[in-house]
């Protein structure tokens, strides 16, 4: 099986450990990924505020590159990119005129629609779940994880069409359970962490992240799993600021791919857990 892989801006910097762990998991599943060489930034949070046409052109430019590679499905790990790709496709289906204008701008005529998938959607396919189950070598059943999906993946559902319930998704829970990790029921699965205000209004972001972390703590979680680079960074790096205000969480924030990788035998040294701000290696070792 081979997919195009949109390895975007944040996965090359703040979310490098997401890329690293994802590659390891896909390797083990024998799924081949190929990056488009002429990719550009999808514009995510930045473009739609100033130009809707630009916000739709940038994702479609990338999808055009994927079509030129002769592939018709792409894996998009960053939820902001995923969201923009899906919204652009949706808008252009609705408005053929805009699609024509954009095709002129990027000098490419689409033959067919490229399937855009988040890694969660790929790993949750029955055959991949079964394969993951068969690969488990490390017992991580002592972990009590809350799956945090955030906003961009699931909403607006009509546009993103994420293959799950937008108010109470279970895809990540299913994947983690398949590799023997226990996930807990909680109420902040899809609450927004305020990611895009991270450096402009940290006061608001601290409020929003603390609500999410409070709920995780109140249900007894000892780790949080995320599918998004903004969520990971925000929930992780802000815990130090919250500790300064007197609330300590010490909740490690893992990419779901890191947990899956560990369970299926990728050695810790091959992952980049040391890049997390909250210490995240100790909890992996079962207390004797």
């Amino acid at each position, binding site marked *: 099986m081979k997919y195009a892989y949109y390895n975007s801006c944040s996965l*090359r*910097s703040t979310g490098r450990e997401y890329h690293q762990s994802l590659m390891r998991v896909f390797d083990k599943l024998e799924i081949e990924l190929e990056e488009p060489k002429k990719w*550009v930034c999808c514009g995510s949070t930045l473009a739609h505020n100033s130009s809707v*046409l630009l*916000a739709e052109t940038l994702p479609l430019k990338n999808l055009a590159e994927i079509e030129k590679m002769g592939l018709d499905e792409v894996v998009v790990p960053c939820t902001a990119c995923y969201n923009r790709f899906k919204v652009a496709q949706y808008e252009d289906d609705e408005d053929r005129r805009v699609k024509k204008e954009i095709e*002129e701008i990027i000098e490419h005529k689409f033959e067919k629609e490229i399937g855009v998938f988040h890694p969660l959607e790929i790993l949750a396919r029955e055959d991949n779940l079964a394969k993951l189950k068969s690969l488990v070598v490390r017992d991580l059943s002592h972990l009590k994880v809350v799956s945090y999906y955030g906003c961009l993946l699931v909403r607006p559902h009509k546009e993103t069409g994420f293959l799950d319930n937008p108010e109470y998704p279970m895809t990540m829970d299913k994947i983690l359970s398949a590799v023997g990790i226990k996930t807990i029921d909680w109420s902040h699965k899809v609450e927004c962490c305020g990611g895009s205000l991270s450096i402009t209004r940290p006061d608001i972001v601290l409020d929003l992240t603390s609500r999410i972390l409070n709920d995780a703590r109140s249900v007894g979680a000892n780790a949080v799993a995320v599918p998004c680079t903004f969520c990971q960074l925000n929930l992780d790096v802000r815990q130090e600021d919250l500790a300064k205000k007197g609330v300590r969480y010490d909740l490690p924030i893992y990419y779901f791919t890191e947990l899956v990788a560990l369970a299926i035998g990728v050695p810790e040294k091959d992952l980049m857990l040391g890049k997390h701000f909250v210490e995240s290696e100790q909890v992996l070792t079962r207390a004797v």
Partner: protein
Amino acid sequence: MTETQVVLEYELLPGHISELAGNIKAMHGVDANMCYQCGKCTSGCPLNEYMDMTPTQVIHAVRLGLKDIVLNSNTYWLCVACGTCTGRCPQDTGLLMVMDALANIAIKEGIKPREPAVAEFYRTGLNLVKRYGMMYEAGVAGLLSLKTGTLGRDFGLGLRMLKKGKLEVIPHSQNADEMKKIFQRVAKKEQELAGS
């Protein structure tokens, strides 16, 4: 009605649509007039307590054509596009797109943003993306801190990020020439569309 009174745009007649709502519909295809003010958008909005106007008030004001009031609120700048409003709207009103449209209009009309740092973040970020073809996080954070005078506040965070190897100090270029071309063509196309 006395002579001095003008017929206000917001004296809605059947089939009436305010100029602002009309523009938004033309630009973004969303119909603010579908809103029946149930308040579901506001009740789910994670940012509403920090906003001058709730999302429900914004959409009502758009219907009434109260352009100045809406454009001078901080609401559309604080919107993080989480999509809760739009996802839950029983009328398919597309508030998310209304927020985008308001930012688009405000930028074009040179309205002074009520959240200057947020507006500057989008502007600086987009300029860097145009220049390098991809995001340059350290650059946007640094430039923003300088421009908004928050260097003192952000320095600690920047340092923590650098220590963890989460920031690239030097920007990478990614298909930058083609990116610049795309930006130019989009700008040209927008002018054509505005003129047509």
